[in-house]
């Protein structure tokens, strides 16, 4: 035998595990055995650990705060920098009450609402979240959430493939978030689906002639708007250029719904995207919340959970998970998706954000993004060495080109405590001088002026 601690010894107690010495002895007696080890007799000795795991701890909260606090302090963030980073993760205003409400244990520590009688809070909130998605996109049916924007696009492509009549080609705009495209390639790698990428034209929008060609024989096409270059696509033009395919709109900057035309009334069948912009902190990429909204005719092919309205035996209105026969726990290998755990708590945060901001606030956030972006663009146009390579209309993000490598310019800006943009050469070859700049309602005129001045100075420094 090896020397593991005696579980009944007072030193073995842990603050998260209530039962200790006396409880353990009483419970063992009730079971009719004399030691906890006996409970593990079915695990063969050959695979049992002979020693404790070699990991640090147990730490008190004091030690935990110290170690993690030191780690967090090693990141450069908006704590002491101004950030112009976007690319699918945006810093927007977060109303204070959202996080306070999210910490309510009844939301935070509840499970998936499989038992509706004791889960109406979660269920009603999801029903409201679904309604917000429908109002914003102009489509009919939204699910309870997907993991994020990238996997929501994967699921949309797979949905479209299911309802197609044997077609195996999908046309995806090259200007969709590169991580989303990479994720789709991973998901479909064994499913016999072919991807063709629709290039962008000089204005940064999908090239209409190429679109028509790519979409021929495809079961679906997908574009992102505003796209990864920040440019707003023309839904009507795309829809009329490709009438006979399932059209998927991807929205990675969800505040844009506040002012831009929604995809549903403009010929699109599915809208998927990333809801992080609805008041969720960037938190290094997750957890976020993917959304999916579809035309009514597609609802039975949809992945993920759906909440519907019904009544209880007393005739009282209530909400319940429904159309569950699509899902893995019933249809198993033939399910519309393997998704089970989703992003429920973030969807709840999104519901709170959309409710608080409401009809007026969503428009005001979007308009401030639009106007501040236009202001910064105006300032940058005044710098003769700055080029704006794409001239299509933008919302709150755009590509900047200087005569110098983007990495050097951004390093210069970092010296000025400005996180100045995302270098594009990590995604696209031949774009070594380009970087992506995002503006939100959190930027002040002073921030924007400072950015323009710092960029101008950085270029001047590189010149020397």
């Amino acid at each position, binding site marked *: 035998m090896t020397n593991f601690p005696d579980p009944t010894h007072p030193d*073995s107690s842990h603050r998260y595990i209530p039962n200790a010495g006396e409880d353990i002895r009483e419970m063992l007696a009730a079971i009719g055995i004399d030691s906890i080890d006996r*409970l*593990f007799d079915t695990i*063969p000795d050959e695979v*049992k*650990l002979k020693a404790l795991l*070699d*990991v640090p*701890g147990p*730490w008190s909260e004091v030690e935990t705060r110290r170690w*993690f606090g*030191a780690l*967090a*302090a*090693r*990141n*450069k963030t*908006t704590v002491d920098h101004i950030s112009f*980073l976007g690319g*699918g*993760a945006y*810093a927007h205003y977060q109303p204070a009450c959202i996080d306070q409400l999210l910490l309510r244990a*009844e939301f*935070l520590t509840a*499970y*998936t609402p499989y038992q*509706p*009688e*004791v889960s109406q*809070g*979660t269920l009603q909130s999801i029903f*409201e979240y679904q309604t917000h998605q429908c*109002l914003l996109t102009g489509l009919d049916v*939204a699910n309870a*959430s997907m*993991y994020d924007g990238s996997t929501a696009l994967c699921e949309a492509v797979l949905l479209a493939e299911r309802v197609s009549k044997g077609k195996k080609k999908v046309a995806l705009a090259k200007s969709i978030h590169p*991580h989303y495209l990479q994720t789709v390639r991973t998901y479909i790698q*064994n499913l016999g689906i072919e991807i063709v990428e629709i290039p962008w034209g000089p204005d940064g929008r999908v090239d209409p002639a190429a679109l028509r060609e790519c979409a021929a024989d495809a079961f679906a096409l997908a574009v992102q708007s505003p796209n990864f270059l920040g440019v707003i696509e023309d839904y009507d033009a795309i829809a009329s250029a490709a009438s006979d395919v399932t059209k998927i709109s991807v929205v990675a900057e969800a505040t844009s719904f506040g002012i831009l035309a929604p995809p549903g009334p403009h010929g699109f069948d599915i809208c998927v995207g990333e809801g992080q912009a609805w008041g969720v*902190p*960037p*938190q290094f*990429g*997750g*957890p976020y919340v993917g959304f999916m909204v579809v035309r009514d005719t597609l609802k039975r092919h949809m992945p993920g959970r759906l909440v519907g309205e019904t009544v*209880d035996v007393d005739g009282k209105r209530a909400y*319940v998970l*429904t159309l569950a026969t699509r899902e893995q726990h*019933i*249809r198993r290998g*033939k399910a519309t998706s393997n998704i089970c*755990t989703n992003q*429920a*708590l973030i969807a709840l945060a999104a519901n709170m954000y959309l*409710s*608080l901001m*409401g009809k007026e606030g*969503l428009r005001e956030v979007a308009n401030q993004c639009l*106007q501040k972006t236009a202001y910064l663009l105006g300032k940058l146009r005044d710098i003769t060495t700055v080029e704006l390579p794409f001239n299509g209309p933008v919302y709150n993000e755009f590509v900047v080109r200087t005569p110098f490598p983007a990495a050097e310019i951004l390093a210069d800006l970092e010296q000025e405590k400005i*996180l100045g943009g995302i270098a594009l050469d990590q995604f696209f070859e031949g774009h070594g001088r380009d970087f992506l700049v995002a503006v939100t309602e959190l930027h002040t*005129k002073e921030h924007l002026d400072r950015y323009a001045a710092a960029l101008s100075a950085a270029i001047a420094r590189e010149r020397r």
Partner: protein
Amino acid sequence: MTTTADPEIAEREAAQKSATEPLIFERSKRGRRGYQLPALDVPEQAALPASLLRSEIADEAEVSEVDVIRHFTRLSKLNVSIDAGLYPLGSCTMKHNPRINEEIARTPGFALSHPLQPEHQVQGNLELLWTLEQTLKEIFGLPRVSLQPVAGAHGELTGILMIHKALAKSGNARKYILIPDSAHGTNPASAAFAGYQVKELKSNNRGTVDLSTLEAAVNEDCAALMITVPNTLGVFESEIRRMADVLHAKGAYLYCDGANLNSFVGIARPGDMGIDVIHSNLHKTFSTPHGGGGPGAGPVGVSEKLVPFLPTPTVEKRDDSTFYLDFAHPDSIGRMRAFHGNFNVLVRALTYMRSMGPTGLRRIAQLAVLNANYIRARLRPHYHLPYDAPSLHEVVFSDKLQTPKDVHTLDIAKRLMDYGFHPPTIYFPLIVSGALMIEPTESEPKEELDAFCDAMIAIARETQERPELVRSAPHTTPVRRLDEARAARQPVLRWRR
């Protein structure tokens, strides 16, 4: 909690009346607002073409902050939660969610960091990810772990895609995945999404898989066995090492669904069992909150053979103790998600692992298994135990002793609500007719376990004496049984004015 008093009609009505909460859209009134932004401080000059703009978002809410706080606070009161008491959902591991995890995750240095920042700006995050991988490697006994998957099913897909790619690289991706009939539904769904057919393996009378059944099913077309250890009955597959040998001899892989890792963490390691891939639901074993259905995280540990196929990027440490993202894995299956997975769920999980330490991690399994076996011992005289093989962290009863009174598992589950408990997982695993799958976790004090057992025993007695009371339960919840057929026949999936 343990009273068996007949619920009064008045009490029921009072409970239900207090529970009615209109939809947020029904609270909306023109002119109300719930936000304020600083006034626009730049000239309003941008003008997009009208064709790109929307009109107002018709029917979107107009509510004040007070309305919102009242609304969501009232909604929250319609839920039960682990903070309020035992939540014994089998295979879900509803354990205590420590609040230090929440505090650490909200540290501005983590919460405000952006996923596309260059490596030198986010060394703290990269070190955290690297450190979590080291810890999971030790827990799994496996050489590498990917932190990208954001849920158990996402981890399954990741793992099976890796197996597919490894087999394809050696010349034959093979045709099917073996899955026991006791498995969770995500297993066959993930296998299908990775491009495989599914062949079901029959369980034996202990609820486990016989070595001979496996041997007969494995051939050159079999890519892997996907098995939950311990299985969904809580029974450990004692032959697991030999199962691995059988599979490996035929060039196939052993995938372990780690949903039940809570029962053996710190006691045994998947790597030592011959397992090639395991996903672990951090929202189960490692205490991150379920949040009403997510978010979670589903890191995947792999054996040496599968390391080249891990998703990219991986996080690596340089000799000078700096950290970087490594994309140079030519055989990688690719990226499973944008950015770095559910980073702030990973922060919570590492916080928990450090809070537990080596002794605490082992104690999790010890007390989780003790608690489950205590329930098993107390309830065994009152409920049918369809498989009596020794079980670890959960126990599965059935309604066989109650059905003669026309009381079924669903009724027992609903009646438990009247006693203040969330029901166990019901009608799963599918190999048990009328299953009641109970997993208390290590978080429950003995008093709470006793109260739960007392309630279950009282329901067994009510079934004999007053079955109608059980059949018509619940009586005291915010709503009573729902018309689920109506919801599915004429789906109403959104509010309309």
